[in-house]
């Protein structure tokens, strides 16, 4: 006997992502799901955002890591509010974990919730968290072949931040190639070139954020 189901395998996650998305919409909160390889600069970028525009945009941070709360601690040191999720081995955050974390954060009082996903360029892509924008970080030392090797990750991005551009002169990194490869799978994506340590290029990224979160605010 054979039965046909055609059921979405990650439907439980998707149901929960829908709940999160409805929550963010209702409370006019812009939610960012930040995805990158380990060490691309997610925590450094978020810390800098808190220092630079934290007085204009009220932000809460959800930190996903396999172990420890060091990243949440770094966010608190930068003056931000953070909740740490330890995934104990899982390579991605799930919508349910985010649902529980935003309760702890009092996210309804925020303008923006930033989720730092577990450092991994592949798996987190498969899990919708209910975010308003998916932000992929690619840092210069990782090499210029990443968009073509991980097309699925870049295809589903709303924003790509090319980070550590201060290292461009020291590393063989073909920016033209990176931009072209990203555009192949995602012609409409926003791309910003930044350095989270020197602050170069961050202005344009903040401008985009202000517009996007302003639009969420206007709907309030």
């Amino acid at each position: 006997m054979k039965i046909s189901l055609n059921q979405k395998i990650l439907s439980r996650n998707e149901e929960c992502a829908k709940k999160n998305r409805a929550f963010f919409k209702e409370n006019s909160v812009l939610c960012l799901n930040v995805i990158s390889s380990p060490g691309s600069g997610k925590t450094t970028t978020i810390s800098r955002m808190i220092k630079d525009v934290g007085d204009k945009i009220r932000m809460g941070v959800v930190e996903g890591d396999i172990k420890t709360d060091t990243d949440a601690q770094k966010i608190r040191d930068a003056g931000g509010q953070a909740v740490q999720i330890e995934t104990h081995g899982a390579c991605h955050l799930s919508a349910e974990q985010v649902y529980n974390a935003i309760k702890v954060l009092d996210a309804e009082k925020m303008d923006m919730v930033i989720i730092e996903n577990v450092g991994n360029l592949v798996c987190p892509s498969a899990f919708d968290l209910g975010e308003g924008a998916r932000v992929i970080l690619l840092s210069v030392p990782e090499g210029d072949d990443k968009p073509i090797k991980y097309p699925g990750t870049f295809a589903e991005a709303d924003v790509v931040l090319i980070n550590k551009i201060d290292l461009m002169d020291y590393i063989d990194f073909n920016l033209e190639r990176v931009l072209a490869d990203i555009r192949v799978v995602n012609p409409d994506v926003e791309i910003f070139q930044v350095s989270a340590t020197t602050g170069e290029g961050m202005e344009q990224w903040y401008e985009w954020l202000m517009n996007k979160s302003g639009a969420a605010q206007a709907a309030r």
Partner: protein
Amino acid sequence: MHETAVAESILHTIIAQADKANAKPVSAIISCGQFNTLNDECMQFAFEAAAAGTVCEKTKLVIKHIPLRAKCEQCQTVFEFDVYKPACGQCESKEFDFEPDAPLLLETIEFEG
């Protein structure tokens, strides 16, 4: 390695369906697209590990990979996208729109008898 999460999810469904049908599941077919693709070996390994000691211990898992299609803006041809050659198969144009990538699906379950 989100194959583990996928394995747990399908195992859950297959066990529930096996209970309902009161029969042993012999095989199950799942499918995935190109952007959130599954690695066959990882998937088989994760499923075997998750299924150990359950009614699915001997269930055969079949993984189908569904190609990603794109439509050429120049000549309107619908072609299978290939990252090694990201261009229209007909006119070689690089201007095209993707059709939606296939979702992760549990398609069918076959039971004994």
